[in-house]
């Protein structure tokens, strides 16, 4: 058990952010000199509003272009490291590499049902070509099992219909990410808009994924969640990563208390 754990840690992919900067109309939003994500299986990224957490996540996915710097995806294999520069890739190539992010704001395909959405996420590109007009059955057969497993785990009112509430849409976004079989999963405020019992289930799913060898990074304002699940926490403020360390170190650090938590937090 311990040996396999160690092996899994070795092959866990990491993301290296080097000198990444981004400004919006002259205001520097992100200026990260160097940041290594994925030293531990589940890491947290916290900081006050406007610290640049979401922008940094979007820069990693290359859905926000960088002003400067690079972002690298590092995989350790038998034959040494393989490095892919994410900031050179178009957005749609990320999922193929296994780099996947859930969305902070609600994103959905309004005309697609929940089943549609999940089959879309699962389907291989070769079945989605213009001439493959009879491939629905193959796609359904290949992925029915895993989709049903997630639908059993997460309660949707009617999976053959549309996602109704904001909560369902948020959950659907996360399940889509899980079906992409991520190797590096970024979660942008996964608990926002979800009831507590669902948040707990999401975290259970994430732990499962992490045990299978996926690296997880969570951005979250619900700090109890961060302290509970993360083994390493990065603290961001004013576009920079100011501190990194174990949850206990970070929550007691004077800078974090001053800039984010406020006095009196530690006691609680």
């Amino acid at each position, binding site marked *: 058990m311990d040996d396999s754990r160690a092996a899994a840690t070795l092959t866990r992919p990491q993301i290296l952010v080097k000198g990444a900067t981004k400004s919006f109309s002259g205001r520097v939003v992100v200026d990260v000199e160097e940041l290594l994500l994925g030293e531990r299986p589940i890491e947290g990224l916290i900081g006050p509003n406007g610290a640049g957490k979401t922008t940094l996540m979007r820069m990693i*996915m290359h*859905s926000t272009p960088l002003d400067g710097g690079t972002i690298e995806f590092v995989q350790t294999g038998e034959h040494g490291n393989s490095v892919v520069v994410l900031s050179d890739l*178009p*957005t*749609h*190539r*990320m*999922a*193929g590499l296994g780099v*996947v*992010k859930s*969305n902070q704001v609600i*994103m*959905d*395909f*309004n*005309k*697609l*049902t929940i*089943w*549609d959405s999940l*089959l*879309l*996420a699962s*389907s291989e*590109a070769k*079945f*989605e*070509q*213009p001439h*493959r*007009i*009879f*491939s*629905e059955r193959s*796609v*359904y057969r290949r992925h029915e099992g895993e989709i049903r497993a997630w639908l059993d785990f997460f309660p949707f009112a009617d999976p*053959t*219909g*549309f996602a109704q509430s904001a909560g369902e849409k948020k959950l659907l976004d996360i399940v*889509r990410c899980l079906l*992409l079989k991520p190797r590096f999963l970024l979660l942008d405020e996964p608990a926002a808009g979800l009831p507590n019992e669902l948040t707990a289930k999401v975290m259970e799913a994430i732990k499962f994924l992490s045990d299978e060898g996926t690296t997880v990074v969570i951005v979250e304002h619900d700090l109890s969640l961060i302290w509970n699940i993360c083994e390493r926490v990065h603290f961001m403020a004013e576009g920079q990563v100011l501190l990194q360390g174990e949850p206990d170190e970070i929550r007691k650090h004077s800078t974090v208390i001053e800039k984010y938590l406020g006095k009196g937090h530690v006691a609680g």
Partner: protein
Amino acid sequence: MNLDWLDAFLLQGVFRVVMVLGLALLLHLQMGLARIANFGVVGFWGLGAYAFAVLFVKVDWSLGEPWPFLISMAFGAAVAGLAGLLVGWLIADLETEGVLVGTLGFATSVWILAITEQELTGGALGMGGLKFPFDIGKTKANELLWFGILFAVVALIFFYVFRVHRSPYGRLLIAVGENEPLAGSLGKPAFRTKLWLFAVGSAGMGLLGAIHGVMAHLLIPESIGINVTLAAMVGLVLGGMARVWGAVIGVILAVGLFDVVVQSYLPLPRSWYTQTIPVLREMVFGATLIAVLIIKPQGILGAMRRDKLTRRMHGG
């Protein structure tokens, strides 16, 4: 075969209805599913017609029938498909307004080329020499057979579109049309998807154009005007842009009503046919489009119902 019962004018009208239906079905994939408003339908249609005609008429074929005809047909479709690839590449990243202007501009370019490239197209005088690849007797019989072939092609297009709705490809088109960044984050290449959609759709439009050329015997620049695009678009929007049957119902209602019922059965003065009716038609179509968009923007059949389809395909 005695075909006295068949009115030649009526046959022309029905032929036009089925032709526009084919175009509307292809447009449905682009506009109804992937949300790309292609206002250049007639450009691909006309390019297919002229490419077919030029190869068929201008080349001194040494091959026996029916090869020159079939090769020219394929050539017409291929040229239109390549143009679709090029136009698709230009507009894939543009907003709706850019797509509108770009495709409209393409259709206008084709029209102008048809006028100015007199060596190839015969200019404003038109290009003759097109004939049916068979001869089974009277003109009417030949026309009826050719109509049957068009009907079969459009039925195939309908079947294709129907299947696309029930395939992962259709789901991809809807996803790209609805939320491109989200589709991208799921690993779906929006740009490539649109490019192929345009290439395939345009090739189909080009083939229909070539079929039109054969029926008309003579290609003139006036026949590839905006009214063809307008007819397909009005039909599609009237019936329901997002529905397969929307194109069918809308085109039969709009084009069928006007081109068949009004022109064949209403006692209109003969002198109206050349000048007044085409103008009236465009006015009525334009007014219909505006009225539908105000009163029932989703069209007669309404919005897409993926929930019903999902239940039918994968159980409740």
